[in-house]
Protein backbone atom coordinates (compact mmCIF):
# COMPACT_ATOMS: atom_id res chain seq x y z
CA UNK A 1 0.00 0.00 0.00
CA UNK A 2 1.19 3.48 -0.79
CA UNK A 3 -0.05 6.90 0.02
CA UNK A 4 -0.45 9.32 -2.86
CA UNK A 5 -1.21 13.00 -2.73
CA UNK A 6 -2.66 14.92 -5.65
CA UNK A 7 -2.87 18.70 -5.50
CA UNK A 8 -5.08 20.39 -8.06
CA UNK A 9 -4.90 24.17 -8.55
CA UNK A 10 -6.69 26.61 -10.82
CA UNK A 11 -4.39 27.64 -13.67
CA UNK A 12 -2.76 31.00 -13.05
CA UNK A 13 -4.70 32.68 -15.84
CA UNK A 14 -8.04 31.32 -14.62
CA UNK A 15 -10.08 33.33 -12.16
CA UNK A 16 -10.01 31.89 -8.63
CA UNK A 17 -12.99 33.43 -6.83
CA UNK A 18 -12.43 31.41 -3.67
CA UNK A 19 -8.76 32.27 -3.25
CA UNK A 20 -9.58 35.85 -4.07
CA UNK A 21 -12.25 35.97 -1.38
CA UNK A 22 -9.80 34.62 1.19
CA UNK A 23 -7.15 37.14 0.19
CA UNK A 24 -9.62 39.99 0.46
CA UNK A 25 -10.92 38.89 3.82
CA UNK A 26 -7.56 38.44 5.58
CA UNK A 27 -6.72 42.14 6.09
CA UNK A 28 -10.25 42.72 7.41
CA UNK A 29 -9.59 40.03 10.00
CA UNK A 30 -6.38 41.74 10.99
CA UNK A 31 -3.94 39.50 9.11
CA UNK A 32 -1.51 41.63 7.15
CA UNK A 33 1.25 40.66 4.76
CA UNK A 34 -0.51 37.97 2.72
CA UNK A 35 -0.09 39.12 -0.83
CA UNK A 36 -1.84 36.35 -2.69
CA UNK A 37 -3.99 33.30 -2.00
CA UNK A 38 -4.99 30.57 -4.45
CA UNK A 39 -7.34 27.78 -3.46
CA UNK A 40 -7.36 24.33 -4.94
CA UNK A 41 -8.06 20.75 -3.98
CA UNK A 42 -5.97 18.25 -2.06
CA UNK A 43 -6.58 14.53 -2.49
CA UNK A 44 -5.12 11.76 -0.37
CA UNK A 45 -5.31 8.32 -1.95
CA UNK A 46 -4.43 4.92 -0.56
CA UNK A 47 -3.29 2.81 -3.47
CA UNK A 48 -2.22 -0.79 -3.95
CA UNK A 49 1.40 -1.27 -4.88
CA UNK A 50 0.21 -2.54 -8.25
CA UNK A 51 -0.81 0.97 -9.26
CA UNK A 52 2.05 2.56 -11.18
CA UNK A 53 2.92 6.21 -11.78
CA UNK A 54 1.43 6.20 -15.25
CA UNK A 55 -1.93 5.08 -13.88
CA UNK A 56 -1.81 7.75 -11.19
CA UNK A 57 -1.02 10.41 -13.76
CA UNK A 58 -3.95 9.22 -15.84
CA UNK A 59 -6.33 9.38 -12.87
CA UNK A 60 -5.23 12.91 -12.11
CA UNK A 61 -5.40 14.12 -15.68
CA UNK A 62 -8.66 12.54 -16.77
CA UNK A 63 -10.56 12.72 -13.56
CA UNK A 64 -9.25 14.58 -10.53
CA UNK A 65 -8.32 17.66 -12.51
CA UNK A 66 -9.93 19.40 -15.45
CA UNK A 67 -6.97 20.26 -17.68
CA UNK A 68 -8.92 23.09 -19.30
CA UNK A 69 -8.77 25.14 -16.13
CA UNK A 70 -6.54 23.30 -13.68
CA UNK A 71 -2.94 22.20 -13.10
CA UNK A 72 -2.05 19.26 -10.90
CA UNK A 73 0.82 17.58 -9.12
CA UNK A 74 0.98 13.91 -8.15
CA UNK A 75 3.30 12.82 -5.31
CA UNK A 76 3.90 9.55 -3.54
CA UNK A 77 4.46 10.17 0.14
CA UNK A 78 6.29 8.05 2.68
CA UNK A 79 4.17 5.23 4.11
Amino acid at each position, binding site marked *: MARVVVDVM*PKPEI*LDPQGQAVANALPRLGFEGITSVRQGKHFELEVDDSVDDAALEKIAET*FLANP*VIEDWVVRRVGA
Partner: protein
Amino acid sequence: MSVRVGVITFPGTLDDVDAARAARYAEAEAVPLWHGDPDLKGVDAVIVPGGFSYGDYLRCGAIARFAPVMGSVIEAAGKGMPVLGICNGFQILCEAGLLPGALIRNSGLHFVCKDQWLKVENNTTAWSSRYEKGAEILVPLKSGEGGYQATQSTVDELEGEGRVVFRYVGDNPNGSRNNIAGITSANGRVVGLMPHPEHAIDALTGPTDDGLGMFLSLMDAVVNA
Protein backbone atom coordinates in the same frame (compact mmCIF):
# COMPACT_ATOMS: atom_id res chain seq x y z
CA MET B 1 -44.45 12.83 -37.16
CA SER B 2 -43.77 12.83 -33.51
CA VAL B 3 -40.48 14.25 -32.36
CA ARG B 4 -38.82 12.19 -29.63
CA VAL B 5 -36.67 14.07 -27.16
CA GLY B 6 -34.56 12.07 -24.73
CA VAL B 7 -34.09 13.42 -21.22
CA ILE B 8 -31.24 11.88 -19.24
CA THR B 9 -31.45 11.11 -15.54
CA PHE B 10 -28.20 10.71 -13.61
CA PRO B 11 -28.12 10.01 -9.89
CA GLY B 12 -28.71 13.48 -8.47
CA THR B 13 -30.39 14.97 -11.55
CA LEU B 14 -33.19 17.31 -10.45
CA ASP B 15 -34.67 19.17 -13.40
CA ASP B 16 -35.37 16.13 -15.58
CA VAL B 17 -39.10 16.36 -14.89
CA ASP B 18 -39.00 19.99 -15.94
CA ALA B 19 -37.07 19.32 -19.13
CA ALA B 20 -39.52 16.56 -20.04
CA ARG B 21 -42.45 18.86 -19.32
CA ALA B 22 -40.92 21.57 -21.51
CA ALA B 23 -40.52 19.08 -24.35
CA ARG B 24 -44.17 18.08 -23.98
CA TYR B 25 -45.26 21.73 -23.97
CA ALA B 26 -43.56 21.99 -27.36
CA GLU B 27 -45.53 18.88 -28.40
CA ALA B 28 -42.57 16.57 -28.51
CA GLU B 29 -42.59 13.16 -26.90
CA ALA B 30 -40.29 13.10 -23.87
CA VAL B 31 -38.32 9.85 -23.57
CA PRO B 32 -36.57 9.09 -20.28
CA LEU B 33 -32.96 7.97 -20.67
CA TRP B 34 -31.05 6.33 -17.82
CA HIS B 35 -27.40 7.17 -17.13
CA GLY B 36 -26.37 3.53 -16.95
CA ASP B 37 -27.99 2.52 -20.25
CA PRO B 38 -26.20 3.46 -23.48
CA ASP B 39 -29.42 2.97 -25.49
CA LEU B 40 -30.70 6.31 -26.81
CA LYS B 41 -34.04 4.65 -27.70
CA GLY B 42 -34.12 6.17 -31.16
CA VAL B 43 -34.60 9.75 -29.98
CA ASP B 44 -34.25 12.73 -32.31
CA ALA B 45 -32.55 14.94 -29.74
CA VAL B 46 -31.21 14.77 -26.20
CA ILE B 47 -31.52 17.12 -23.24
CA VAL B 48 -28.96 16.82 -20.47
CA PRO B 49 -30.92 18.46 -17.66
CA GLY B 50 -29.95 20.44 -14.61
CA GLY B 51 -29.44 19.39 -11.03
CA PHE B 52 -26.57 18.01 -9.05
CA SER B 53 -25.43 14.84 -10.75
CA TYR B 54 -23.35 12.92 -8.20
CA GLY B 55 -23.90 15.79 -5.79
CA ASP B 56 -21.56 18.02 -7.84
CA TYR B 57 -18.82 16.30 -5.87
CA LEU B 58 -15.27 16.63 -7.25
CA ARG B 59 -16.37 19.08 -9.99
CA CYS B 60 -19.79 19.66 -11.47
CA GLY B 61 -20.32 17.12 -14.20
CA ALA B 62 -16.96 15.42 -13.66
CA ILE B 63 -18.40 12.06 -12.65
CA ALA B 64 -21.53 12.10 -14.82
CA ARG B 65 -19.62 12.58 -18.04
CA PHE B 66 -18.26 9.04 -17.77
CA ALA B 67 -21.76 7.49 -17.65
CA PRO B 68 -22.47 4.88 -20.34
CA VAL B 69 -25.25 7.02 -21.82
CA MET B 70 -22.77 9.86 -22.42
CA GLY B 71 -20.71 7.72 -24.77
CA SER B 72 -23.79 7.36 -26.97
CA VAL B 73 -24.60 11.06 -26.69
CA ILE B 74 -21.09 12.03 -27.76
CA GLU B 75 -21.31 9.68 -30.71
CA ALA B 76 -24.77 10.90 -31.76
CA ALA B 77 -23.72 14.54 -31.39
CA GLY B 78 -20.81 13.80 -33.72
CA LYS B 79 -23.39 12.81 -36.31
CA GLY B 80 -25.32 16.03 -35.81
CA MET B 81 -27.98 15.09 -33.28
CA PRO B 82 -29.22 18.19 -31.42
CA VAL B 83 -28.13 18.15 -27.78
CA LEU B 84 -29.06 20.70 -25.13
CA GLY B 85 -27.24 20.95 -21.81
CA ILE B 86 -28.95 23.04 -19.15
CA CYS B 87 -27.02 24.13 -16.05
CA ASN B 88 -25.52 20.90 -14.72
CA GLY B 89 -26.11 19.55 -18.23
CA PHE B 90 -23.97 22.37 -19.63
CA GLN B 91 -21.26 21.50 -17.11
CA ILE B 92 -21.44 17.85 -18.15
CA LEU B 93 -21.18 18.73 -21.86
CA CYS B 94 -18.07 20.82 -21.11
CA GLU B 95 -16.51 18.04 -19.05
CA ALA B 96 -17.32 15.62 -21.85
CA GLY B 97 -15.58 17.83 -24.39
CA LEU B 98 -18.72 18.46 -26.49
CA LEU B 99 -18.43 22.14 -25.67
CA PRO B 100 -15.26 24.09 -24.88
CA GLY B 101 -14.40 25.72 -21.55
CA ALA B 102 -15.55 25.04 -18.02
CA LEU B 103 -17.87 26.42 -15.37
CA ILE B 104 -16.43 27.49 -12.05
CA ARG B 105 -17.66 28.77 -8.70
CA ASN B 106 -19.73 31.97 -8.93
CA SER B 107 -17.62 35.05 -8.31
CA GLY B 108 -19.89 35.96 -5.37
CA LEU B 109 -19.25 32.46 -3.93
CA HIS B 110 -22.96 31.96 -3.25
CA PHE B 111 -25.57 29.93 -5.04
CA VAL B 112 -27.69 32.40 -7.01
CA CYS B 113 -31.37 31.86 -7.80
CA LYS B 114 -32.87 34.78 -9.71
CA ASP B 115 -34.86 35.72 -12.76
CA GLN B 116 -32.23 36.69 -15.30
CA TRP B 117 -32.46 38.65 -18.54
CA LEU B 118 -30.56 37.10 -21.43
CA LYS B 119 -29.81 38.47 -24.86
CA VAL B 120 -30.12 36.09 -27.79
CA GLU B 121 -26.87 36.49 -29.73
CA ASN B 122 -27.23 33.65 -32.21
CA ASN B 123 -30.55 32.45 -33.62
CA THR B 124 -29.13 29.97 -36.08
CA THR B 125 -28.63 27.01 -33.74
CA ALA B 126 -30.90 24.01 -33.43
CA TRP B 127 -32.13 25.39 -30.12
CA SER B 128 -32.52 29.13 -30.75
CA SER B 129 -34.03 29.64 -34.22
CA ARG B 130 -37.40 30.77 -32.89
CA TYR B 131 -35.90 33.86 -31.28
CA GLU B 132 -35.07 37.10 -33.00
CA LYS B 133 -31.42 37.97 -32.89
CA GLY B 134 -30.91 40.55 -30.17
CA ALA B 135 -34.15 39.64 -28.38
CA GLU B 136 -34.09 39.73 -24.60
CA ILE B 137 -35.69 36.91 -22.66
CA LEU B 138 -36.30 36.43 -18.93
CA VAL B 139 -35.60 32.98 -17.47
CA PRO B 140 -34.52 31.64 -14.06
CA LEU B 141 -30.84 31.26 -13.30
CA LYS B 142 -30.05 28.97 -10.38
CA SER B 143 -26.53 27.73 -9.85
CA GLY B 144 -23.51 27.93 -7.60
CA GLU B 145 -20.91 27.18 -10.23
CA GLY B 146 -22.03 29.08 -13.27
CA GLY B 147 -18.99 31.20 -14.08
CA TYR B 148 -18.01 30.41 -17.66
CA GLN B 149 -14.22 30.22 -18.05
CA ALA B 150 -11.99 29.32 -20.95
CA THR B 151 -8.61 30.32 -22.24
CA GLN B 152 -8.45 33.62 -24.07
CA SER B 153 -7.98 31.89 -27.40
CA THR B 154 -11.11 29.77 -26.85
CA VAL B 155 -13.13 32.82 -25.90
CA ASP B 156 -11.82 34.68 -28.96
CA GLU B 157 -12.75 31.75 -31.15
CA LEU B 158 -16.26 31.52 -29.71
CA GLU B 159 -16.81 35.23 -30.16
CA GLY B 160 -15.26 35.28 -33.62
CA GLU B 161 -17.43 32.43 -34.86
CA GLY B 162 -20.59 33.80 -33.29
CA ARG B 163 -20.88 30.79 -31.04
CA VAL B 164 -22.04 32.70 -27.99
CA VAL B 165 -25.78 31.98 -28.06
CA PHE B 166 -26.95 33.78 -24.92
CA ARG B 167 -25.36 36.57 -22.94
CA TYR B 168 -26.32 37.92 -19.52
CA VAL B 169 -27.91 41.36 -19.63
CA GLY B 170 -27.19 43.76 -16.76
CA ASP B 171 -24.91 42.84 -13.88
CA ASN B 172 -22.85 39.73 -14.48
CA PRO B 173 -24.43 37.27 -12.02
CA ASN B 174 -21.52 34.86 -11.67
CA GLY B 175 -18.32 36.22 -13.14
CA SER B 176 -18.67 34.53 -16.52
CA ARG B 177 -16.18 35.73 -19.09
CA ASN B 178 -17.72 38.17 -21.55
CA ASN B 179 -21.07 37.69 -19.74
CA ILE B 180 -21.43 34.37 -21.51
CA ALA B 181 -24.59 32.48 -20.50
CA GLY B 182 -24.66 29.88 -23.25
CA ILE B 183 -22.58 28.67 -26.19
CA THR B 184 -22.87 26.28 -29.10
CA SER B 185 -20.74 23.77 -30.95
CA ALA B 186 -19.20 24.68 -34.29
CA ASN B 187 -22.12 23.11 -36.19
CA GLY B 188 -24.78 24.81 -34.05
CA ARG B 189 -26.37 21.51 -32.97
CA VAL B 190 -25.06 21.26 -29.41
CA VAL B 191 -26.01 24.10 -27.07
CA GLY B 192 -25.22 24.54 -23.40
CA LEU B 193 -26.43 27.29 -21.10
CA MET B 194 -26.48 27.95 -17.36
CA PRO B 195 -29.97 29.50 -17.06
CA HIS B 196 -33.08 27.33 -17.15
CA PRO B 197 -35.39 27.78 -20.15
CA GLU B 198 -37.39 24.75 -18.97
CA HIS B 199 -38.49 26.73 -15.93
CA ALA B 200 -39.86 29.51 -18.12
CA ILE B 201 -42.52 27.76 -20.17
CA ASP B 202 -45.59 28.92 -18.28
CA ALA B 203 -46.12 32.18 -16.41
CA LEU B 204 -47.88 30.22 -13.64
CA THR B 205 -44.70 28.50 -12.45
CA GLY B 206 -41.96 30.63 -14.00
CA PRO B 207 -41.25 34.30 -14.54
CA THR B 208 -42.34 34.09 -18.21
CA ASP B 209 -42.83 31.57 -21.00
CA ASP B 210 -39.80 32.92 -22.85
CA GLY B 211 -37.92 29.63 -22.52
CA LEU B 212 -40.40 27.70 -24.62
CA GLY B 213 -38.78 29.12 -27.76
CA MET B 214 -35.80 26.83 -27.28
CA PHE B 215 -37.92 23.71 -27.36
CA LEU B 216 -40.00 24.97 -30.27
CA SER B 217 -36.76 25.75 -32.12
CA LEU B 218 -35.77 22.14 -31.71
CA MET B 219 -39.06 20.99 -33.21
CA ASP B 220 -38.29 23.05 -36.29
CA ALA B 221 -34.74 21.72 -36.44
CA VAL B 222 -35.90 18.12 -36.32
CA VAL B 223 -38.88 18.48 -38.62
CA ASN B 224 -36.90 20.45 -41.21
CA ALA B 225 -33.88 18.16 -41.03
